[in-house]
C-alpha cells in the first residue's frame, strides 16, 4: 500500500465520528460485539480473547459540537468527558455493547457512573488498576480485577474465554507492540521521514482496527515511509508529553513540527505502548498480564510512583534514549493528572539541565498561532543558545 493511501485510510478512520467501521466489523460476522474503552489503559487482550473488538473512545475532537455534554460537567472540567457524553447521547456509540472506564482520574470515574445511569442495558465497568506495585499485594488485586473482567465479558459474549484464547490474544498484542516500537524507533532515528501527525493517525487507527490488521498497517507504513525521500529540516528534537488522555487537535501536532521541532517520543495512545516488554505466552495468562503491569509498564501521570526520587526518571530516560534536546509539556486544560505532575517532572528535568516549555490545549483548540510561536521560540532557543 502506498504511503498516501495508508495515511488517507487512517485519516478517514480518525474523521469518522459515527464509528461506521464498528458497524461494518460487526456486520461481517454473526454475534460480534464491540467494547469501548477510555484512555489510558485497559487490557485489550481480554476483550480480544472474548472475540470482541476493543474500541478506543477518545472524545469528539475538534469537529464535534458539544451541545448536550456541557450540561453534565462543570466549566472547570476538561473537555473529553463532555464530548464523550455528546457522542453517546447523540447515538454515535450505539454499536458499542459495553464500555470500560479505566482509573485515569476522578472525572473519568464519574463518567462511568453517568454511563451506568444513562445506559443501564450495557456492560459498564470502572476498571481499577493497582497503585501498589508489590506482586503479592497489587499483583494479587490486579489479577482478581482481570478475572472479573474476563467473567463479565464471557457472560456478555455467551462463551467461555479459555487460557488458550488469552494466550493467542497476548501473542497478537505482543506483535503489535513490537511493530509500534519499530515505528517509534524509526521516527527517532529519522524524524524527517516520519511526520508526527502521521504517527498519531496510525496510532489512532489502532484504536478501532483489529490488532492484527493494525500491526500489518504499521509494517506497511514503515516500508512505504522508507521508500519516499522527505526533506531534512534543521529542527530540534523534542519529547512531547501530557497528551495521554484528552487528545490534541491534529493541527497542534502539525504546528509543533512546523514550528521547528521534530517529535522523537510522545505519550499518544499509551494503551498500545503500556507494557514495555513482551507478555509471556506460556503459563497463567492473567497472572502474566498482571505481572507485566506491575513490573514493566510505562510511567505516566495516572500511575503512582512509589519512590519520590524516581519521579521523572522515565521521561528523562526517554529524552536520553531518543537524543532529545528538550521537552514540550502539552497538557489538556483542567487535566488534573498532567497538570499536577508537571511541576515534579519539570523539577526533575531542571536537575538534569534539560530545557522544556509548557502550554495547554483542549481537544477543540482552533487557534494555533500562540502554540506555534511558543514552540518556535523554544526551538530557536535550543538551536541557537544551547550548549550542545
Amino acid at each position: 500500500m502506498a504511503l498516501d493511501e495508508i495515511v488517507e485510510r487512517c485519516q478517514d478512520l480518525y474523521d469518522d465520528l459515527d464509528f461506521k467501521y464498528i458497524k461494518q466489523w460487526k456486520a461481517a460476522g454473526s454475534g460480534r460485539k464491540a467494547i469501548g474503552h477510555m484512555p489510558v489503559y485497559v487490557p485489550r487482550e481480554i476483550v480480544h480473547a472474548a472475540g470482541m473488538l476493543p474500541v478506543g473512545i477518545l472524545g469528539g475532537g475538534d469537529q464535534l459540537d458539544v451541545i448536550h455534554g456541557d450540561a453534565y460537567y462543570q466549566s472547570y472540567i476538561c473537555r473529553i468527558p463532555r464530548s464523550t457524553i455528546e457522542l453517546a447521547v447523540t447515538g454515535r456509540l450505539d454499536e458499542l455493547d459495553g464500555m470500560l472506564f479505566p482509573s485515569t482520574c476522578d472525572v473519568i470515574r464519574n463518567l462511568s457512573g453517568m454511563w451506568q445511569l444513562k445506559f443501564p442495558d450495557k456492560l459498564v465497568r470502572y476498571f481499577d488498576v493497582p497503585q501498589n506495585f508489590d506482586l503479592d499485594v497489587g499483583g494479587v488485586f490486579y489479577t482478581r480485577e482481570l478475572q472479573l473482567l474476563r467473567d463479565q465479558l464471557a457472560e456478555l459474549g455467551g462463551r467461555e474465554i479459555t487460557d488458550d484464547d488469552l494466550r493467542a490474544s497476548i501473542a497478537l498484542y505482543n506483535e503489535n507492540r513490537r511493530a509500534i516500537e519499530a515505528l517509534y524507533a524509526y521516527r527517532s532515528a529519522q524524524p524527517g521521514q516520519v511526520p508526527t501527525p502521521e504517527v498519531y493517525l496510525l496510532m489512532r487507527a489502532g484504536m478501532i482496527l483489529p490488532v492484527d490488521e493494525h500491526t500489518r498497517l504499521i509494517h506497511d507504513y514503515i516500508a512505504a515511509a522508507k521508500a519516499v525521500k522527505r526533506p531534512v529540516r534543521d529542527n530540534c528534537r523534542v519529547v512531547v508529553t501530557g497528551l495521554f488522555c484528552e487528545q490534541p487537535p491534529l493541527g497542534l501536532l502539525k504546528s509543533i513540527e512546523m514550528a521547528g521541532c521534530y517529535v522523537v517520543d510522545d505519550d499518544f495512545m499509551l494503551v498500545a505502548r503500556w507494557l514495555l516488554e513482551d507478555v509471556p505466552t506460556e503459563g497463567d495468562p492473567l497472572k502474566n498480564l498482571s505481572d507485566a503491569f506491575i513490573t514493566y509498564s510505562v510511567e505516566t501521570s495516572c500511575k503512582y510512583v512509589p519512590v519520590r526520587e524516581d519521579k521523572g526518571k522515565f521521561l528523562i530516560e526517554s529524552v536520553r534514549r531518543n537524543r532529545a534536546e528538550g521537552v514540550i509539556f502539552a497538557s489538556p486544560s483542567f487535566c488534573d493528572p498532567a497538570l499536577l505532575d508537571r511541576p515534579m517532572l519539570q523539577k526533575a528535568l531542571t536537575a538534569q539541565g534539560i530545557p522544556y516549555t509548557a502550554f495547554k490545549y483542549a481537544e477543540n483548540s482552533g487557534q494555533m498561532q500562540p502554540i506555534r510561536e511558543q514552540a518556535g521560540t523554544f526551538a530557536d532557543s535550543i538551536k541557537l543558545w544551547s550548549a550542545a
Partner: protein
Amino acid sequence: MTLAAGIDLGTGAVKAVLFDVSDGETKWLARSTERIRRRDPLVLAKQGYERILAGLDLDPELVDYVATTGDGENISFRTGHFYSMTTHAKGATYLRPGISAVIDIGALHGRAIATDDRGKVLTYKMTSQCASGSGQFLENIARYLGVALEEVGEISKTADNPETVSSICAVLAETDVINMISRGISTANILKGIHIAMASRLVKLLKSIKAREGIALLTGGLAVDEGLIEAMQEQVVEQKLKVKIVSHPDSIYAGAIGAALWGAFRHDKLLQVEHGVPSKDLHEYDAARPALAVDMGEESVACPLTSVVEPQSSTCPADQVLRSDSADKKT
C-alpha cells in the same frame, strides 16, 4: 565560507537576502523585496529567492542554509525556520550594533524586543489581537484618505493640530477617522493623530519590556515611515523614557537578515556536530567553494530621516561575538 539565505514572509511583503559569512566577515550579497498585494506569498517567496540567485548566477546547491522567518514555515525549500523575535533581534543588531531594543512594526503586529549585543532575545511584548498598532491598519486609513502609503509620513509631518484617535481599537479608530473626514479635518492632522495613536501603543510596549534608555531600532515595513518615527520620538519624551529611537534604510530587511545570519550560524554548528570540525577550521573545511565577488548596487530604500539613520555596516560585530562564544560552547 557559508552562504545563507534569509526569507522573511511577512503579511504585507516578502523579503529575501543572501549573505556570505566567512571568518567572522559578513557580506550582504543580494536582496529582494516584493509587496504581496493579494498574490500567493509562497510563490513570491520562491520567485524572490530565485531572483537573488539568478542575479548572482548562483547554483542553489551552493547555498548552505535557507532560513525562513515570519510566516515562512510552509516554504518547502527551507532548511530551517526561525521565529520573528529571534530574527528581528539578530537583524537589528547587525544593522545597528549596540542597540538594546528593537521595535518591529509589520503589517499585522507590532512588537518590542529587548536584545543584547549578540542578538539574543531577552524579553519581548507584542501588541494584542487588535490591529491598531500595525501597518495594515495604517494602510487602511491611507486608503480611506486617498493617500499613497509612501506619502503618509511626509504629509503627517505637516500637521499643525493633530486629532486624537483611539489607540485601543482599530475599529473605533477607523470610525474616528470617518467622523473626522466628515468634520473636514485636514488629512495631515488625521494622519498625525493616527501616528500618535500607534506610537503611543508601541512606546508602551517599550516600557513593558523595561527599555527605558539606550537605543531602539525600528524594523519592519513601517520603520521608514518618517511620520511614525517622529511621533514615536515625541511619545518617548511624553512617556518619560530616555530611549533614542532610530531607523535604518534597510530596516525592512531586518527579519530576513537575522534569518540568514542565524542560518549561517546553524550551518556551522551542525557541521561541528556532524563532522567534529572545530569552529575555527570551518572555513578550511569549506575551502573548495569558489569565492564570490559581488557588487550590491544601489537598491537600498532611502530613509529621509538622515539625522537618525546610521550607515549600513558591512560586518556584524554581534556575529563576531557569537563566533567567539561558539568556540567556547557558550552560545
